[in-house]
């Protein structure tokens, strides 16, 4: 005699729990194989759970109305067929036919392993986990022990989707998939390897973000020959306009930096020169001109450079831009940003001015065609109409993919950016 522990089975794909609507058997009842034990309700339907074995119901682990999750002890049944040392030879049940038998299967396997431990002629080697090499690699790269993944394939075979689902359940967010072109998830740090240090140097293994940056930079620098135009613009008016607006913005609880203005100015230029808001499709020998304006904002974080994206920035008011920029950069810095929030940009802005930089040669956020580098604003004297005047000059560096755009067009675009920034009133015309 043995007691068979029946764990709450999976009721269907993606259904992990159910409410015990009604017990059909009671403790002490005799139940035959395939006879219903209980009615269980989920958001889709009410189903009967059949007994996988024949025997006397010893214990019901839930009261009616309680919610049971897959894998939890559900019913224990005393059977004649088993002793606790025996292999549990679970007969095929309708559950199995309905593809609902994972749990039953699991119990069986667990028991089988136990047997092999106590039987001397069984090797210590456990049965091989069923998973193909590329899936095993995916698990490794995401720090998942393949043995812990629940396989949904035939005979418990672990699929790619199972590994991804396992990751999602662990709350680790999106998985790192090798060779992804995009910046990897900030939430997941590389599993740190033992570090070997000597007196002269310290060896720091690359974090996953650093590795992604490395790959992205190499790809961009070596695939897209880019050129940088550098220019200055008198933003005296813009500076005073922003100062004027400071009270209003403070009242609204928004931090108004120069970035929203720069985004507006960039979009104005991109609209006029669509080849800068584009992507080169080398394979098919065509250029895709993007009709939406998703602006990536290069953001410095403790972990490295991340580029959150202002999706549909062309539809945003100045307020919305200011709020979105603050929200995204806060998320990026705290590691809470999602992968989608860093994807799909059509052109980017890199601001080195906040670190007091001036001119530089930004690397394209490949496969974009243009990136605008913004330097600091400095006070200087300007000769204007024969007079010496005080002026606030902003440094601009526009890198562009020379395969798509030539120098003259790039400079014209830069001129457009300058024109908008020099005369903030024009921004009214751009909304």
């Amino acid at each position, binding site marked *: 005699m043995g007691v068979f522990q029946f764990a709450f089975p999976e009721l269907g794909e993606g259904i992990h729990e159910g409410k015990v609507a009604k017990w059909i058997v009671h403790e002490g009842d005799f139940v035959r194989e395939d006879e219903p034990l209980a009615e269980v309700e989920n958001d889709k339907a009410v189903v009967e759970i059949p007994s996988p074995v024949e025997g006397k119901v010893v214990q019901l682990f839930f009261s009616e109305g309680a919610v049971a999750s897959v894998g939890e002890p559900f019913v224990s049944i005393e059977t004649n067929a088993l002793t606790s040392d025996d292999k549990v030879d679970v007969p095929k049940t309708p559950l199995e036919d309905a593809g609902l038998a994972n749990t039953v299967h699991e119990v069986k396997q667990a028991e089988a392993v136990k047997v092999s431990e106590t039987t001397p002629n069984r*090797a210590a080697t456990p*049965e*091989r986990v069923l998973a193909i090499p590329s899936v095993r690699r995916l698990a490794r790269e995401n*720090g998942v022990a393949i043995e812990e993944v629940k396989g949904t394939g035939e*005979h418990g075979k672990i699929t790619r989707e199972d590994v991804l689902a396992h990751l999602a359940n662990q709350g680790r967010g999106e998985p790192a998939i090798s060779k992804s072109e995009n910046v990897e998830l900030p939430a997941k740090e590389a599993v740190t390897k033992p570090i070997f240090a000597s007196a002269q140097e310290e060896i720091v293994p690359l974090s996953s973000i650093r590795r992604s940056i490395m790959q992205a930079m*190499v790809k961009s620098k070596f695939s897209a020959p880019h050129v940088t135009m550098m220019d200055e613009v008198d933003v005296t008016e813009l500076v005073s306009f922003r100062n004027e607006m400071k009270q209003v913005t403070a009242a609204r609880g928004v931090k108004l930096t120069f970035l929203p203005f720069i985004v507006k100015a960039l979009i104005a230029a991109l609209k006029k020169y669509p080849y800068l808001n584009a992507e080169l499709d080398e394979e098919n020998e065509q250029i895709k001109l993007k009709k939406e304006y998703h602006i990536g904002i290069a953001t410095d974080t403790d972990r490295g450079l991340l580029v959150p994206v202002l999706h549909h920035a062309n539809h945003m008011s100045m307020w919305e831009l200011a709020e979105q920029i603050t929200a995204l950069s806060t998320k990026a810095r705290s590691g809470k940003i999602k992968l989608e929030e860093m994807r799909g940009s059509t052109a980017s802005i890199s601001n080195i001015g906040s670190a007091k930089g001036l001119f530089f040669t930004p690397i394209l956020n490949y496969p974009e065609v243009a990136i605008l580098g913004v330097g600091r604003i400095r006070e200087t004297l300007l000769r204007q109409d024969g007079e010496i005047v005080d002026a606030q000059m902003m440094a601009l560096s526009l890198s562009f993919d020379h395969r798509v755009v030539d120098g003259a067009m790039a400079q014209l675009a830069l001129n457009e950016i300058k024109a908008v920034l020099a005369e903030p009133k024009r921004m009214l015309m751009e909304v």
Partner: protein
Amino acid sequence: MVVGELTEEVQMVVIGGGPGGYVAAIRAAQLGLQVLLIEKEDIGGVCLNRGCIPSKALITAAEDYAKGKNGNVPGIDHVVTLDFRKVQEWKDSVVTKMTQGVDMLLKGNKVRVVKGEAFFVGQQEVRVMTDTEAHNYHFTHCIIATGSRPVELASLPFGKRVLTSTEVLALGEVPKRLAIVGGGYIGIELGQAYAKFGAKVTILEGTPSILPAFDPSITRLIGRSLKEWQVEVVTGALAKSAVESADEVRLTYEVNGEVHAVSADYVLVTVGRRPNTDELGLDAAGITLDGKGLIPVDHQGRTSVANIFAIGDIVAGPALAHKASYEGKVAAEAAAGMHSAVDYACIPAVVFADPEVAAVGLNEDEAGKVYEKVKTGRFAYGANGRAVSMNAANGFVKLIADEESGVLVGAQVVGAEASNLIAELALAIEMNATLEDMALTIHAHPTLPEMVMETAEAALGTPIHMLKK
């Protein structure tokens, strides 16, 4: 001290240019590391220069000669002559072609190759000695791939007529009589090849069976074939001594306490290989060897010193070139920060005997210890159209599966082209293929691989070209 001793900074040092080392060097370079490969003898290591490649060239030549002489197909008569020196020249040209190819690959991947013998002087530094000078390299990562060399028996020291496989592969003429101590795969391969060239070959094996790593059903077939080539096999034989004279060597051995002797032109001693780990200065690196002289490593090939990896014949597992290469890639990737791991489900092993033998995964006994029940299928070459039309009807394919799931867990092939047939079976195991999957995959007709499909059908109880008993 050497004058003007220099220390150069490198990201990755690979010691040894065999199939482990050169593959690791290329992969590391592909991943952006700056790589220095140190090799004391020839690029390509044992495998290309003194192992897999030259032995297979000689085996092919021997097979060609034997087929020519004995006629493969009735009705075609040949007059065949043998110029063994020319055969050797051709074999050497094969080796040169392959090693030059590796040289080119290394160059193309910007791997710097330095000739010299390396040993550790610290956890991040090796010294490389050439005939004339010494040079030190300070590294961030290191992969040790120094391979193995033949074991020398105290009772049979190597000499002019007591040889290792290296010299036997390079003999200038076919010996009249060749005695071989060791019935493992190298002894069988070379013994059978020289028998085909006309040598009278005697093989002494210490255990009760040749090819002790393989199933008796396989060794029986090989034993029968050796007999056909007049190779004398003595099992349970203990070699005692070899006395060299001017034109021969006399080998004495003991079987069941009785002393016997055999005279030969040469004695090949091939009783195993020992890892080249004793002269590497591993102490200075802080690495300790296990009892067999192997370097203990983790699942990425990392030694106890985190920035030093070891791969190939100097770590545990079968001493095979493809295992060395696999481990080389893993170690290089791990050093470059990837999460790679030595994580194979199986390693195929091949003996280029006549007929060829190949095995992968578990054999029936091993499978029985892991799985509750196993299902096997067996199919004979004699029932396969291509095998018969190649006049190669000798052999079988055997599949071993977990009965519950039908998943393939092991396979063995004996017969023509077994070395090529095993690839599909290794892939099937890695991909968790079931007997059904294999039975349902269309195999071209008439080919030898059709037997894989047929064997799967046989295991499932529905073979077409075989009557069920």
